[in-house]
């Protein structure tokens, strides 16, 4: 035949996990009940160590309303880059282990919900941790520790949690 024998269509290089996680994070922001003290001004969602997730959030979710609060997305390469003076409602940290633990301790006294993607995420102090179940992205929650911070995990979020 005259036509070529080669391949034609390229692989879509979209970061599929970033797309899914971004939507989960948006739901975590929108469906939880935050303390009154942080329900004014902007809603701060911060990503540490995952540029593509940050880009996805900026592209699709920046300035969307969380209640009455416009969503602001922040991105940092490392946990030590995270400014200590500002409040972050929701922080996603891509690295686990000791670095995650240090970040959890630094945020312990704030109503910040720390989200991780690490096999021992909850043990290291995250309140929500992404896990893989049946090749799908799901999440586990430490609802008790969230309540201690004054954050009430919403029913919709609880319903889909794996533990």
């Amino acid at each position, binding site marked *: 035949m005259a*036509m070529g024998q080669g391949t034609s269509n390229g692989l*879509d290089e979209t970061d599929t*996990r970033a797309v*899914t996680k971004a*939507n989960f994070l*948006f739901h975590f922001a929108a469906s939880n009940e935050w303390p009154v003290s942080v329900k004014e001004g902007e809603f701060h969602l911060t990503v540490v160590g995952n540029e593509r997730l940050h880009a996805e959030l900026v592209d699709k979710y920046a300035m969307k309303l969380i209640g009455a609060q416009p969503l602001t997305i922040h991105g940092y390469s490392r946990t030590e880059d995270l400014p200590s003076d500002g409040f972050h409602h929701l922080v996603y940290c891509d690295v686990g282990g000791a670095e995650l633990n240090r970040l959890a301790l630094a945020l312990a006294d704030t109503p910040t919900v720390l989200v991780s993607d690490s096999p021992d995420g909850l043990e290291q102090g995250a309140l929500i941790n992404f896990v893989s179940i049946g090749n*799908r992205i799901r999440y586990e929650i430490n609802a008790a520790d969230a309540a201690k911070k004054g954050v009430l995990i919403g029913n919709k979020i609880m319903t*889909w949690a794996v533990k």
Partner: protein
Amino acid sequence: MHTPSFPRFTFALTAVLIVLSTWTAAAQRSLERAEAFVRAGDWDAAHAVLAPEMDQAAYASNARAWFVLGFVQKEQFKASGASGLDAAERSRAVGSLQRALAMGTLSIRDEQTARDALDFLGRSYFREAIERVEGFTLGAEPEILGLMGRYESVLQSLNPAYDVTEQRADLHRYLGQAHANLLETERYAGTSEEQMLFDGAIAHYEASLTHAPAHYATLYNLAITLYNHGVRQLKRINHETSMFELMEIQDVCVGLFEQALLPMEQAHQRRPGRLETLKGLMTVHYALSQPEASDAYKRQIEAVLQKK
């Protein structure tokens, strides 16, 4: 009084022979006139002389007449610029030439010319099928398959042992690509046609694999089409997507990613050093939340790149 039977039979036979020879002479004259027009390149005049005579008994078994008529019809087809399944001159030319050859009484030279003419007509079907694949539009598929069917039919009339397996595999692969290319344009995003295009692409790749099961490009393209369709669904997620919808979309996507894995692995087995399949496997495993497997292919990519 009775007439002796032998003279009566002789009379009848003579009458039949006279009629037959008259027909044959007339037929011969029409054929000769048509050939004169052919030599002058006046195809329409040649056709006008010969075509009405072909219903006559004398012509029904005249291979040379069918050959000349077929040749004239082929030239008329060329002059008409017609194309597609509706090009009547071409269909008639094929029929006339096949009939001439089937009689088995053509001279060697005429037979070769008839075969060359049929080969030309067959390839014209093929060329048009390929043109339609290259400029593929939704709904063009039946015409393409029809043209290819006629191409194969002509080839097999010239050589009954001709094996069309490879060409069928190629055609289905090209149709798979044509469907997939339209999907990539996003012109049909979110429409019912999008699902038709996806189903069409997958069906053609699978049909191609039944003819050529280990064809690298078909396996790779099938995997890519499945994977990309999953990503396409995922990219529609936005701030209006509910948690329930997110879970449903994930189920659909993961199903497609899982389906993509097998042909991608088979393509990789065919050509283990190809970066595109290594990258494909790394990406599919990543999408399936299998970081260890994804990292293993990432390391293989790095190793291949280091060798370059």
